[in-house]
């Protein structure tokens, strides 16, 4: 590790580790306050006193200094593997870290933070202040496994803050870190800050992450009140750095998760533009020997490698090969043979004889050499994509760097207005659900989100993680990143297509013979067999399970589920193996399930083929290699899954798709789950297989005719209990939705005020100068004032749309929640 201080005449200095800028005294407070103060302020809100703090990295003591400014901190551990950095922190940097290491609350540990966290206790605030990874080993403390350790060490109510990577020039890497933190079961709030010295180094806006067990609302940042004074950071404006445009967020959706097994972060950091250059480039025909596009595709895998270095190397090799004329070379050497030793002369003569004997010229050698070089470049490109660390040798880190220029203007507003023209749109909350449709399948309900399957709201995008499949450096990536198919699958633990295992889920049921309670004039239908326990084998989606017998099961609440099999849909309660009701088999519902199963099966087949190919090479070594045996197990389980998915699709039996539309098209209905709605008179209506509707008030269950006559049967207690649980679940989700909408509304309104202020400022500058080309600071870029005015006006329009959407959403959620609350009372406690 190379440590270097670059001192300037005015006494300021910059600190570098292996050539990477760590801090510059001119603006280090901005960096460290931005990292530490938001998290500490939020942690102190939850627990004002007796705060325990852990700092991983940060051996310079500057983050430690910031944490110790909080009087509530009673204990602060700092763990850094570099004794040298900590030593500099104690000595050279003692003045700027205000002797933080001498504080009685500070406890310093030299060692691996990874190991330290294994035995660490619980902390109210955890900070990771690591250097940016420059080799594969460095990325270990950015993996999901690392963040899982953090998650375990974080006290309830605690908060963590991570120094990430550039959120401007390595946006994919930044989102990769963010997604990795989320994969460790932590809620995140990403934000970015412009550090002038970082900017001068070409790092761009710097990214940070807040993480906690609970969601961190943007309003928490907006309303952040730091109990201690700041020197450079402007806490009141920090929330603007947490604004990301829709385009940026979309890039985040496709970011992969970085794990020990599936290391993806380093290529993203080192090749921020590789995807773009691939799109523009294209490989020329090898016959033309145009290697430039090919060379440009070689990913950089080491911080000591640069694009220029690769291109220069390639040019030199190509030039050497083209210019090579061994015959002339030997002739020239022999002309001066008197100056050479006798043995060498003899050797050169042999070489000349050899060259004259192998053909009329050596043009073919040059030609074939170039072709060989093309082949080698292709091989290296491929090898580099497969195993970056093996393809290029690692050089030692250089320490060369340019000194940064003095003068750090515009510290104050550096981090504001990152959002760009579309950056004010509020987050798309409450969307998602099994198939992401906002309208549901029944057509009877209006605006229910994700109600199609289960009435589950806000579960997130069911297919969201598939996005990572398109994120490989060169080709589409496999999706299995966990070991579920090597162990959990088939042993009672449902596994998803990514190989993640979940808690065992067992359901006891008998298949419906088409009726259920109130079906075909029969009372609770029994086919005369005891209910059999069936285990969930595969989790096709958060709301869809494939059972060990190929049945499809869609949970609707904690106690109820839909069984979808043989072209029928039946509602079951966990308390009874008998179906409670048969429901209308909506063709779109079935089709969507079929599409989902087909997609997952296609992915499983891709994985199977990949493993078969691999094992066709190495299968015979299974007796001596455990990893190959694991691969074989995984292949067997995937083949089993493929069979089960085929079976499940056969079991499904799609209904004809020329079904009549639902007879209920009432916009006041609130959808609970598939073809089950809460009507305006606080009853719940089900669409029966014969396309008629059954109604219940929790006491009686009636057909539409019986509703007018007042007759009907007693509603089974299990059905009433199930409906109550569905309503309870929905109430909670609606309350969360409402809160989220209110938060969005508040945020959008505050944004509006800020945007209006910005607009007024731009207009003032415009009218004062009269020069429309005058540059103004529009967040991360300087643009002309007229352009800034246009963009800001556009921001205002988008903001208004957000406000309208939030108002409409909140109104609908509140109205639905009220309706459900009333119905819940009707159904009794």
């Amino acid at each position, binding site marked *: 590790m190379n440590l270097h201080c670059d001192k300037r005449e005015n006494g300021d200095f910059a600190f570098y580790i292996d050539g990477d800028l760590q801090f510059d005294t001119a603006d280090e407070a901005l960096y460290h306050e931005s990292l530490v103060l938001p998290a500490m302020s939020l942690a102190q809100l939850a627990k004002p006193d007796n705060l325990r703090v852990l700092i991983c990295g940060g051996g310079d003591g500057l983050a430690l200094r910031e944490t110790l400014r909080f009087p509530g901190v009673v204990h602060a551990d700092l763990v850094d593997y570099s004794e040298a950095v900590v030593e500099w922190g104690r000595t050279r940097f003692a003045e700027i870290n205000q002797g933080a290491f001498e504080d009685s609350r500070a406890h310093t540990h030299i060692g691996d933070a990874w190991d330290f966290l294994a035995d660490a206790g619980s902390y109210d605030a955890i900070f990771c202040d690591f250097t940016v990874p420059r080799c594969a080993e460095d990325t270990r403390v950015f993996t999901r496994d690392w963040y899982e350790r953090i998650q375990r060490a974080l006290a309830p109510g605690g908060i963590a803050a991570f120094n990430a990577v550039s959120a401007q020039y390595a946006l994919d890497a930044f989102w990769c870190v963010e997604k990795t933190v989320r994969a460790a079961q932590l809620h995140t709030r990403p934000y970015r800050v412009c550090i002038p010295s970082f900017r001068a180094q070409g790092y761009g806006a710097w990214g940070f992450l807040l993480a906690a067990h609970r969601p961190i609302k943007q309003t928490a940042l907006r309303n952040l009140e730091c109990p201690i004074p700041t020197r450079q950071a402007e806490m009141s404006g920090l929330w603007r750095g947490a604004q990301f445009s829709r385009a940026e967020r979309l890039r985040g959706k496709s970011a992969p998760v970085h794990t020990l097994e599936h290391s993806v972060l380093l290529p993203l950091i080192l090749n921020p533009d590789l995807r773009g250059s691939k799109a523009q480039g294209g490989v020329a025909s090898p016959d033309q020997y145009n290697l430039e596009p090919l060379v440009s595709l070689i990913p950089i895998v080491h911080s000591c490698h640069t694009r220029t270095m690769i291109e220069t190397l390639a040019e030199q090799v190509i030039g050497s090969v083209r210019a090579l004329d061994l015959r002339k070379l030997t002739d020239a050497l022999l002309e001066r043979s008197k100056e050479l030793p006798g043995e060498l002369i003899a050797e050169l003569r042999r070489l000349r004889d050899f060259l004259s004997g192998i053909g009329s010229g050596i043009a073919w050698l040059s030609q074939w050499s170039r072709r060989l070089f093309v082949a080698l470049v292709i091989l290296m490109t491929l090898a580099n994509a497969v195993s970056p660390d093996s393809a290029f040798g690692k050089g030692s880190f250089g320490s060369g760097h340019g000194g940064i220029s003095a003068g750090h203007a515009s510290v104050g507003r550096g981090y504001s207005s990152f959002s760009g023209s579309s950056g004010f749109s509020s987050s798309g909350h409450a969307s998602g659900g099994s198939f992401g449709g906002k309208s549901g399948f029944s057509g009877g309900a209006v605006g229910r989100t994700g109600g199609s399957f289960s009435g589950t709201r806000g579960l997130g995008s069911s297919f969201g993680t598939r996005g990572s499949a398109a994120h490989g450096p060169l080709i589409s990536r496999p999706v299995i990143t966990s070991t579920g198919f090597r162990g959990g699958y088939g042993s009672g633990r449902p596994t998803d297509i990514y190989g993640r295992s979940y808690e065992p889920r067992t359901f006891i049921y008998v298949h419906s013979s088409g009726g259920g309670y109130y079906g075909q004039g029969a009372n609770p239908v029994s086919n005369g067999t005891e209910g059999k326990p069936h285990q969930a084998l595969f989790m096709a989606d958060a709301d869809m399970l494939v059972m060990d017998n190929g049945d499809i099961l869609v949970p609707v609440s904690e106690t109820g589920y839909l069984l979808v099999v043989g072209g029928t849909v039946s509602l079951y309660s966990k308390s009874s193996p008998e179906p409670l009701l048969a429901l209308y088999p909506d063709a779109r519902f079935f089709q969507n399930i079929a599409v989902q199963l087909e997609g997952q099966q296609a992915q499983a087949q891709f994985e199977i083929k990949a493993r*078969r190919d691999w094992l066709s*090479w*190495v299968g015979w070594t299974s007796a001596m290699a*455990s990893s*190959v045996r694991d691969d074989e197990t995984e292949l067997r389980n995937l083949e089993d899954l493929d069979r089960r998915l085929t079976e499940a699709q056969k079991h499904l039996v799609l209904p004809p798709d020329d079904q009549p539309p639902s007879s209920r098209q009432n916009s006041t209905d609130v959808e609970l789950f598939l073809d089950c709605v809460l009507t305006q008179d606080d009853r719940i209506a089900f669409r029966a297989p014969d396309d008629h509707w059954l109604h219940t008030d929790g006491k009686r269950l009636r057909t539409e005719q019986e509703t007018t006559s007042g007759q009907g049967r007693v509603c089974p207690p299990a059905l009433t209990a199930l409906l109550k649980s569905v309503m309870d679940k929905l109430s909670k989700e609606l309350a969360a939705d409402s809160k989220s909408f209110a938060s969005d509304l508040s945020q959008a309104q505050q944004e509006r005020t800020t945007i209006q202020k910005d607009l007024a400022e731009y207009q003032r500058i415009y009218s004062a100068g009269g020069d429309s080309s005058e540059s103004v600071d529009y967040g991360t870029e300087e643009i002309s004032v007229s352009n800034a005015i246009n963009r800001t006006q556009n921001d205002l329009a988008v903001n208004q749309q957000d406000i309208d959407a939030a108002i409409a959403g909140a109104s609908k959620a509140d109205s639905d929640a009220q309706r459900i609350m009333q119905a819940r009372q009707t159904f009794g406690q």
Partner: protein
Amino acid sequence: MGFLAGLVLYGVGATRSPYEWTTPVWITLAFFVVPVLVGLVNGAVVKLPRNGAEGFRIGLRSGGWAMFLYASASMMWAHYRVGYNGNTGGVLLVGLVVAITYALIAGVVAGCVCALLIGRRTKSTEQNTE
């Protein structure tokens, strides 16, 4: 020349995985057809006089390296598509063992063919001289 011929032929073979070729076909191609062709090319172009041992070494090197490169690249590709690499060291070791074993087999076949051809050419040259 033999090495280049081997690379080209194995390159054609690499369009499908061993699994897709089916095992008997792949074994025939990888350990017999291509090495024999490599040996023949080497045996045909190499300058005489050479003895059988030299011919065997030439064939072994050409066929072996061609197979080694083919096997290594194919396995890297195959494992990349598998994705999960919890035991990188183990996987690398397995890959190396497989590539070396296959390279030895292909190299020995190519070497034998090359040595035989050189022997025949030598014999034929001697007869012509006589």
